[in-house]
């Protein structure tokens, strides 16, 4: 029987984390070097955790499927990282960052976790500066800030449009140091394909060497998953092509609860999709909304060039509907507004899938050089992809799947329902509730990796005292067998359809029925179609080559296979949540003027799903109680 104990320390919010750190058991320095920890993934969370654990003296084995740990998808985050530094003296504080985040998450996250995140945010900036991250500076030499979607203070730190890259390179450099010191052994081009469980504890993982194809069991005293999110289940998303759900999904099948999978964030400002062959959607940083204004022509199918449409015939729809926040409303609000306009036939560009993001006003007021300095690389990127110059004509943007708030359930110590299995960064569910605010994923990844996990894992290691699993243990053998038989099955299938065509199809099903707007009939339809598609996949998928060599199509087909199962879990969760909250919008739950209707009486809980081999997943609920803030209607009007 699965129990969900969040293990939140009692008492005042402000001192919960301090008290937890004091009450935790420590591992003595002499013992640390005899303790082995596996970290899977080298994004912000994984690299910062692996390097910090190495620094503390643990023996760390770190795995990533990329050719280098520096390539993880954290690198693509453009906009920035939040911290409650209040350098601008504009009224920011830990309490305000906490409140903004919990409200932005539509009151579907834990108060204690979010408060801790806000507290740690300031340390992250200091740590990154110490590592040499070249944050933008003012002329006087102080750190610069900008404001970002969903908030009214300026608390976002940034490195041009490449903040994720610079933060990741900082964490990667720390990791390099620990590898050089011999504290961390790095295994690039190695993919985790299963979890080894014995006596109820996570004891190891099964990995495949992507160059040789060799499948081996790796054991450790604790396992940390930092394997990112699953937006690629939609096929077209802003994620890198390698992003996948396999590690967390395999852990789910071994008994780790999966929480709130239906909380998937659709980012409002991506370049609109054009053709069927398209492999990804490119995000344009949300920071563009600081200066760009979103609009569509007031009249439907107005095909005039945008600069010939007078202001009186333009609908600045976010400014009209949300006068207080205007173009800076949170992502879910902006995305839905864009989609509903396009659905009404008022969109612009090919297929009417797009709205204008217009910079002409700011260019007129502040000059083109200011805009170029702030967003030059984004404008360049836009021109390369679309062939248009956004300094002259407005950009066209459309929402795209971007980030997943759902993930493996973890307690306050970031441990999953499987003892010894820790989950950090986007791979867990904890801090963003039903919607994530801009510039807070980098913050959470680094908070988990640098500052939280290295403490909390020590308590487990000091108290659980589970020995290393002996070689050739039956649990390892069973896990190895699961992996090798799956690889064989993929290679033996009928070779009639490519994995990509299945991926595209399941992505389309989810986008249509479990995307920005969901309803009972649509979700039930998706739940009917997905199993049939999966069956066809296993019968007909074409995977050439062998399993004993470098085989990219085999890697990909394995990830698609997991998406085809995981897609169902997403729909089950969306179906159960009969309310609209954050990024999850149920058509049945809306007000007369189309605003979402949350249901705190029935759904103020974390939905944690348990895998069942012989039937649909089983729902467990972790109630969310609000002692310190009062859940309010999240109004940005």
């Amino acid at each position, binding site marked *: 029987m699965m129990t969900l104990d969040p293990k939140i320390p009692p008492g005042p919010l402000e001192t919960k984390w301090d008290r937890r750190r004091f009450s935790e058991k420590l591992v003595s320095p002499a013992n640390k070097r005899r303790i082995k920890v596996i970290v899977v993934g080298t994004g912000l969370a994984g690299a*910062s955790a692996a390097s*910090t654990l190495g620094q503390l003296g643990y023996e760390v084995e770190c795995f990533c499927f*990329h*050719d*280098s740990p*520096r*390539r993880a*998808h954290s*690198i*693509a985050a453009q906009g920035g990282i939040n911290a409650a530094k209040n350098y601008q003296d504009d009224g920011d504080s830990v309490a305000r960052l906490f409140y903004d985040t919990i409200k932005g998450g539509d009151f579907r996250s834990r108060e204690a976790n979010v408060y801790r995140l806000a507290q740690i945010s300031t*340390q992250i*900036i*200091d*740590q990154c*500066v*110490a*590592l*040499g991250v*070249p944050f*933008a*500076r*003012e*002329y006087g*030499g102080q*750190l610069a800030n900008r404001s970002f979607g969903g908030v009214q203070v300026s608390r976002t730190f940034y*490195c041009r449009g*490449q903040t994720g890259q*610079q933060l990741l*390179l900082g964490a*990667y*450099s*720390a990791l*390099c140091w620990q590898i*050089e010191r011999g504290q961390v052994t790095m295994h*690039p081009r190695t993919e985790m394909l299963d979890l080894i469980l014995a006596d109820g504890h996570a004891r190891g993982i099964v990995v495949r060497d992507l160059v040789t194809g060799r499948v081996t069991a790796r054991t450790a005293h604790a396992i940390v998953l930092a394997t990112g999110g699953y937006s690629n289940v939609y096929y077209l998303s802003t994620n*890198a*092509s*390698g992003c996948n759900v396999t590690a967390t999904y395999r852990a789910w099948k071994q008994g780790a609860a999966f929480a709130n999978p239906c909380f998937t964030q659709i980012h409002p400002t991506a370049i609109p999709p*054009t*053709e069927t*062959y*398209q*492999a*990804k959607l*490119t*995000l344009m940083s949300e920071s563009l909304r600081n200066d760009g204004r979103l609009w569509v022509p007031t009249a439907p199918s107005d095909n005039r060039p945008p600069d010939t449409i007078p202001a009186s015939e333009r609908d600045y729809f976010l400014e009209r509907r949300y006068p207080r926040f205007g173009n800076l409303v949170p992502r879910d609000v902006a995305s839905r507004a864009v989609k509903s306009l396009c659905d009404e036939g008022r969109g612009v560009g090919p297929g009417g899938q797009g709205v204008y993001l217009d910079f002409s006003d700011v260019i007129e007021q502040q000059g083109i050089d200011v805009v170029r300095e702030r967003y030059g690389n984004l404008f360049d*990127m836009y021109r*390369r*992809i679309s*062939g248009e110059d956004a300094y002259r004509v407005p950009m066209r943007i459309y929402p795209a799947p971007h980030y997943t708030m759902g993930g493996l359930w973890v307690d306050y110590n970031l441990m999953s329902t499987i003892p010894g299995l820790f989950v950090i960064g986007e791979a867990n569910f904890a801090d963003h509730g039903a919607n994530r605010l801009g510039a807070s994923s980098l913050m959470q990844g680094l908070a988990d990796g*640098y*500052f939280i996990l290295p403490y909390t894992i020590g308590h487990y290691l000091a108290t659980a005292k589970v020995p290393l699993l002996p070689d050739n243990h039956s649990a390892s053998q069973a896990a190895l067998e699961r992996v090798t038989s799956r690889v064989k099955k993929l290679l033996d299938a009928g*070779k*009639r*359809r490519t994995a*990509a065509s299945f991926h595209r199809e399941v992505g389309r099903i989810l986008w249509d029925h479990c995307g920005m707007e969901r309803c009972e009939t649509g979700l039930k339809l998706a739940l009917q179609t997905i199993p049939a598609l999966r069956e066809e996949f296993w019968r007909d998928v074409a995977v*050439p*080559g062998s399993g004993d060599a*470098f085989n*990219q199509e085999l890697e990909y087909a394995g990830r698609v296979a997991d998406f085809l199962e995981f897609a169902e879990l997403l729909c089950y969760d969306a179906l159960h949540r009969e309310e609209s909250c954050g990024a999850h919008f149920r058509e049945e739950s809306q007000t007369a003027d189309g605003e979402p209707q949350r249901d705190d009486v029935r759904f103020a809980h974390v939905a944690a799903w348990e895998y069942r081999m012989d039937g649909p997943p089983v729902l467990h609920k972790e109630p969310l109680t609000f002692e310190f803030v009062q859940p309010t209607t999240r109004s940005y009007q």
Partner: protein
Amino acid sequence: MKFTLKIWRQQGPNEKGGLATYEADEIGPDMSFLEMLDGVNQRLILAGEEPVAFEHDCREGICGSCSLVIDGVPHGPDRGITTCQLYMRRFSDGVTITIEPWRARAFPVIKDLVVDRSALDRVMRAGGYISVNTGGAVDGNAQLIGKEQAETAMDAASCIGCGACVAACKNASAMLFVAAKVSHLASLPQGKPERARRVTAMIEAMDDEGFGSCGNLYECEAVCPKSISVRFIATLNREYLRAGIVESGVPADPETPHAESD
């Protein structure tokens, strides 16, 4: 649009490779170069052949995975972009396009267009970091860093580690790669304490990995997707020289004979 592709195929590091010809039909001008290759691969898979192995991940020019030499030029004909940011509208209809892997002694081919670039990681491990522990960092504003200095650091730090600079250089030199990291860290106060040791260790590691020396042809800058300037190679040389003096015990500057940093 329609293209003839000559693609380097090689089964493994020790196998002999060669160019194979493929036709790419029904290509739209708005297709990216990698989407065009995706299409070729989908057809190969359905024909029961092995698809062309090539690396890609973010497909937005920042992860540094993609690495193709297109008609003899790493990342193709346009300046300041990666292969994934190249679109087919850049090519004339009907032309033949040759696609090869990065070629350098330090980058052995794994398969087809995929090479092993772990040598770059090993160079980074030798010293491409500031050795500070997690926790206990002083406030981010405790040391003021002028805007220009921060911008210079950022210019250098924007290297994505793709290795195009190596592939473009006839000596297969990694000088621009090393210069970018050394300059980034040397231009910030946080990087100063280790600057002498860092530059020496990284240059040594670079030589050990089999990268050649700089021939001052600036091919590296021309193909760098982040347009990292060769002036950082000058900074690298200066840092290296300076490190030699610091390590030999000769004062760095006659005015301040005991100062380690400037």
